[in-house]
């Protein structure tokens, strides 16, 4: 096999890999089921039937239609129903998918302005906070593409050890490291998100998993807390290191959705 044939083989392999990936992505992206439910939910919202709209959006989520706009619409329904806790919960869930959506940003700020408890803003800039501007899909696919190019150029270097391949490899190596780290951090943040939102209007936080235990402090709907371990219908939550205690599990919903074992997807 001469050198030209080898290069052709590499390029063909690369294109084949791209084709497979694009096909798989398109298959998943163009899923059209549940479209009617979506339209019905939108119509119900417009008619002011927010309960019906919310239940239709939830139906879609249960059916696996997990995306930012569905959560955003569901958050709007709860906002209209004057349930800021559930609204913030769904806006926060939507933010994981559409982090730069200006409508979502506005509505979330609007909802936060209406909650009773003061939530401290993060004081300093961190890399993981900056990564919050991108969703997991964007970061992952960027890394997949860079990863693909990186290995393709490494394969080419088996036969073409010229200057340009060296500099391309150096550039791709740098991008590979940056995106590799970003993907790792994002993956960790996504899979270890223990934040929860108080979904009932007022809750009392106790020193133990019993209503007879000392009341430590009170929280109101929409406040974001960190969820810790759960025990017999009670859960430890933490607002700040000084403000920590037990509440009933149903008073708080976690922003991260549990993974469904059969489909592998995220479900409420």
């Amino acid at each position, binding site marked *: *096999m001469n050198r030209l044939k*080898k290069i052709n083989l*590499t390029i063909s*392999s690369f294109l084949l*890999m791209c084709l497979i*990936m694009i096909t*798989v*992505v398109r*298959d*998943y*992206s*163009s*899923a*059209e089921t*549940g*479209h009617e439910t*979506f339209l019905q939910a*939108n119509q119900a*919202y417009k008619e002011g039937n927010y309960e019906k709209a919310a239940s239709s959006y939830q139906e879609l989520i249960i059916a*696996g*239609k*997990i*995306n930012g*706009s*569905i959560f*955003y*619409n569901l958050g*709007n329904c709860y*906002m*209209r129903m004057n349930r800021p806790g559930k609204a913030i919960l769904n806006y926060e869930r939507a933010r994981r*998918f559409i982090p730069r959506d200006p*409508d979502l940003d*506005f*509505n979330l700020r*609007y*909802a936060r302005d209406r909650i009773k408890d003061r939530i401290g803003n993060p004081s300093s800039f961190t890399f993981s906070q900056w990564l919050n501007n991108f969703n*997991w*899909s964007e970061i*992952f*696919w960027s*890394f*997949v593409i860079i*990863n*693909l190019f*990186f*290995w*393709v150029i*490494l*394969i080419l270097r*088996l036969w073409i050890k010229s200057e340009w391949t060296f500099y391309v490899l150096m550039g791709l190596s740098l991008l590979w490291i940056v995106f590799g780290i970003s993907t790792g951090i994002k*993956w960790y943040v996504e899979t270890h998100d223990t934040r929860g939102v108080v979904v009932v209007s007022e809750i009392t936080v106790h020193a133990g998993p019993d209503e007879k235990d000392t009341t430590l402090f009170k929280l109101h709907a929409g406040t974001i807390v960190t969820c810790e371990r759960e025990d017999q219908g009670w859960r430890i939550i933490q607002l700040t290191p000084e403000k920590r205690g037990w509440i009933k599990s149903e008073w708080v919903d976690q922003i991260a959705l549990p*993974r469904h074992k059969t*489909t*592998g*997807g*995220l479900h409420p």
Partner: protein
Amino acid sequence: MVASKQGILYFITISALFLLYSVGWAKSPVSIYLKMDRTEVTPADTVKLMVTIKGEKKASAPSISGLEPFHVRQGGTSSRFQMINGEISRELDYIFYITPKRTGIFIIGPAQVTLKKKTYKSQTLKLTVQDAPSQPGDEGAPFFVTAALSADTGYVGQQFIYTVKFYRTQDVRDISLTPPDVEGLAMKRLGDHKEYISSLQGKNYSVIELRYSLTAERPGSFVLPPTYFKMSVLERQDPFSRRSPFDDSFFGFTRTRPLSLGSNAIEFFIKSLPDEERPQDFSGLIGQFSMKATLLPQEVKENESATFSVIISGKGNVRLIPDLKIPEVEDVRTYADQPVLNVQTGFDGISGTKTMKWALVPQKEGSIRIPIMSLSYFDPNSESYRRIATKPLTLRITQGKNQQKVAITEERIAIKEPVKSEVKMEGIDIFSIHERSEAMKVRMVTYLDTWILCLFLLAPPFGFIVIFGVNRSRRKIEADKKALTKKRAKQKFFKGIKALRGPYQLSDLMRITNLYLNERMGLGGGSLTSNEAYEALLTNGVKRPLTDEAKEILSHLESMVYTGAGEEDKAIKIKENVMMIIKKIDKELQ
């Protein structure tokens, strides 16, 4: 070419004329000023009085009031023409020399001149004529220094004028001055020095006068030590003692004598400022001050602005003029401008002006009284605290077109920008739901499990490993194949030799030899010349005597093959030689 040059010249001339014509309109307005070289003299002195007429290059001689107690002599006229930033400035000076007839304090001026049926008047000046003070030490000596203080008692922070005069009748050079340095006293030089002729006891002196502003920082008794002048006195040479024509000042042989002269010491007393009747807003300002206020325009529409200015000017410690604050006025927004302080250090002391401005934006129709602004200071002349205030001003406001309230900055006022209104939120609500069809799209990443996602990431490196492995094994196979061919080359060679039918098949011998060398050394194939074989052997590590020998044998074989000449015994001989050399080469290559 000539025509174009003429065109350029024509253009330049027209432009210059246009420029001169246009700037001619921008000439400064007419004004008249009086100026004196001194304000304190003796009856024997002559004062230079100058009348400057600005804005005109021709004018009749001015008439000056208050010159009756003086002998007046005209000193001529001079004119100047300046063009700065497109503005023409013309000045005409009339010079007079006046000599007092008696002692006293005289007010000179105003000078007035009539131009185009309009009369212009100058300011007035005060001239003090007093008898000559008794001079320290050597009266009638060629050099002496005097020092004087404007007052012998005063207050902490008050400005005194310390005047030093150096009188001389002989030429001096390299004059230097050491003013006194006293702890608790701050001294600042006032302007440049003055030089004039003064007459003392019938003798004319050239005088150098310097002035300092002096301020005491604490109360108590002070003594100002003498001010010293150091100089080199030019000594006149006796014409009879001149030894050569070059012993002359022109040739630089003038002799100089160093001289140091001190003034008289001055004792004075400083008091603390009186505590009685000290105003609460007193900022430490001492001197003489005045205050005026302007309001422009005096009538505005709603939400338009008027500028209220307060100007405080005076003589003394002007840096302590405080920044005034305008009290709040109902229905008027006020925007303060940065105060501007101008300090002048003149021969008569430190003076200055502080200008404070506010933009007033009335919000309601009607009339508003602008609050009176006041300021207190200590006047050392009257030895009392004084208060100055602005006159009451009224701003009339008419109904404006634009009812919206806006903030107007100074810059906006200056360039008359249209008033812009702030965008106000009239309501607030959440944004509507997402209805577009893209809202239903689900990203694959959401669905896929981590292990599937990992496959996407691991597929390319896996592909690399596979291709790398295949490539490597292919190379190995090729290498093994070559090694096997090399290994079998010798066997093949001797098998071929055996197959030769007789000694005359030299061309076959050469073919077999070439085949052996090609295979054994992994060459590309084809026939090799003796030289090529020699080079290849050297490249493959065969040492020198052997390669030379091989070259000779192969060369011999070549000549026998291509010439066709050769006997049987020679053919046998060359065959044996080839076999022998191949054995040696094979051994060497191993």
